[in-house]
């Protein structure tokens, strides 16, 4: 075992996540120096947070798909298809955005269940199914509106994508931060009480408090930064952007599913050992189908945020997104062999990807070189994963 003191081991801290956080911080600091202080300006951080949301939302569920030993290459195309569909229903058919979004949700779940059924019921590799989907649904995105761009004009809907009025303002942001800090404390206290009631040993109070203080500080720091950004033509600062709020809500919901529900545990069990999962009576097919259905739900959310952000649905929406999403999951510590990964990791992974992309953009580096660098970052992450697992003895 590693020479970590006993008390620290008791905390079950995911050191890999801590390391990812450190990588993000170092990345930001380096770009900040190189860009002469531009990178860490509230405006840039606000934009990065907002731009990462769509990829981040989809990455949370792609983590689970990869954990279950599957892959989804069709996420960008399906998001494009569903996005154009929702925009078309609003613009051309005149539907209310809620109805249009629900219709989009139904279609997305249908598409996901179709791909999921081929994978779960017939055993067709998800790589093949979704590779076909990558092409087919890009085509479908074109067919929906015959390739025409569908503008979105509903003011409330537009706010879901961020932008000029797409943030919740200073007071609501602080209230949110306060609520979260209280929640972190409460969660810790409840856990200590539950452990004590079953006679499971608790770490010392000060250590638990210290560990709870870290996310609390991050939240407060984030809100303070978002509250420091003011669009020059407006008379109040922005606060937390709505797409980031949605992303946060999605990440919390998925974390809950992973840690607190049978479904989440079964996804990991299937990824760890599919034969064992079947032998102990886990309904592997049903869990796989549910996972794909969940995928459909999150793709719809991402599609809504995405078209709201662009104020339009276009047939190229989400092109190439699958690469960024999978990269975010992998950089965030999801093993492509299945069985391990975390939602919080995908959040950090998506932020690292977007930070590097934005940082390079700030430094005025050409798009060609940017792609070269980001591709190699992904490979570096996988190399790190392989080495890390070898060192810690966690064979992938």
């Amino acid at each position: 075992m590693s020479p970590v003191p006993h008390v620290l081991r008791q905390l079950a801290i995911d050191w890999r996540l801590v390391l990812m956080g450190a990588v993000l911080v170092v990345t930001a600091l380096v770009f900040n120096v190189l860009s002469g202080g531009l990178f860490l300006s509230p405006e840039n951080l606000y934009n990065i947070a907002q731009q990462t949301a769509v990829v981040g939302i989809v990455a949370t569920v792609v983590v689970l798909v990869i954990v279950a030993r599957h892959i989804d290459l069709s996420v960008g195309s399906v998001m494009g298809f569903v996005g154009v569909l929702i925009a078309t229903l609003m613009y051309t058919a005149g539907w209310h955005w809620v109805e249009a979004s629900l219709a989009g949700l139904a279609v997305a779940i249908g598409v996901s269940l179709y791909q999921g059924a081929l994978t779960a019921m017939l055993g067709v590799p998800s790589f093949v199914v979704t590779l076909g989907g990558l092409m087919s649904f890009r085509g479908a995105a074109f067919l929906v509106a015959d390739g025409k761009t569908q503008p979105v004009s509903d003011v409330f809907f537009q706010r879901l994508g961020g932008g000029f009025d797409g943030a919740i303002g200073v007071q609501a942001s602080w209230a949110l931060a306060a609520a979260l800090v209280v929640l972190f404390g409460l969660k810790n206290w409840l856990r200590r009480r539950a452990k004590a009631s079953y006679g499971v040993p608790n770490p010392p109070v000060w250590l638990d408090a210290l560990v709870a203080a870290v996310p609390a500080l991050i939240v407060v720091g984030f809100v303070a930064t978002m509250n420091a950004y003011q669009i020059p033509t407006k008379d109040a600062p922005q606060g937390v952007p709505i797409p980031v709020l949605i992303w946060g809500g999605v990440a919390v919901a998925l974390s809950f599913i992973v840690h607190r529900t049978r479904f989440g545990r079964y996804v990991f069990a299937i990824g760890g050992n599919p034969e064992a999962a079947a032998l102990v009576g886990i309904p592997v097919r049903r869990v796989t189908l549910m996972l794909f259905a969940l995928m459909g739900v999150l793709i719809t959310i991402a599609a809504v945020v995405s078209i709201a952000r662009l104020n339009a649905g276009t047939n190229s929406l989400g092109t190439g997104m699958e690469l960024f999403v999978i990269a975010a999951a992998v950089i965030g510590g999801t093993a492509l062999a299945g069985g391990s990964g975390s939602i919080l990791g995908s959040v950090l992974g998506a932020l690292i990807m977007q930070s590097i992309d934005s940082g390079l953009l700030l430094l005025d580096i050409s798009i060609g070189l940017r792609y070269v660098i980001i591709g190699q970052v992904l490979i570096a992450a996988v190399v790190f994963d392989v080495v890390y697992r070898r060192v810690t003895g966690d064979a992938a």
Partner: protein
Amino acid sequence: MSAPLVELRHIRKSFGGVRAVDDVSLSLHPGEVVALLGHNGAGKSTLMKMLAGAYPIDSGEVRVQGQDVHIRSPIDAQRLGIESIYQTLALADNLDAVANLFLGRELLTRWNTLDDHRMDAEARKVFERLNKNFRNVRTPVRRLSGGQRQVVAISRAIYFNARILIMDEPTAALGPEETAMVGRLVRQLKDEGVGIFLITHDMPDVFALSDRLAVMKNGRLVGAYRTADVTEDEVLGMIIAGKQPEGKAQAHSR
């Protein structure tokens, strides 16, 4: 004589054109250990997997405590009190010992969420019973030793109060101390009235633990005998040549 705990009657199973299990009948009584012997591919594991609900039965009847039952899934088997310890242990290596113990049968809170703390506390009690030194119940089981992994697999059967236990080569990967632990456990469960099917290649295990033994070859039952009635050579003759020993009475039931 007590009623049989399990009666398998004329069980058949084919994979493609291969008859993996061909017209096998076998019974198991409360507190009895029946060793199931044969070469790899003789059909022992397939027969047991049908009883455990992992494979569907092509034809034949299964009775548990005199009742006709239809076992279609591992869940059906679990409901009948049938627990299995597989040779591969059937553990999810990425999950910890507690999660593995309760895998598929998690304890839930009243809001239908996982009750981790209760599972943790319950699991520690079971592990303690099997191995006093087993403390790292919260690390992924891939980091545990062979013996500790075996403890996790066995604890499933114990925690859920198996009445019928299938052990597929339980000592194959174990050191001497852990093998002795499994032996003690088999005797203890036997005293509690649990019926045990023991698949093994290990002759000392067969003669030390089993009351009866049944030998399979090429999917068919060669014969079933009281362990005390036959010699090791006769058993090997059945396994290798499929030859029934001369002058020994078969014992299809106790």
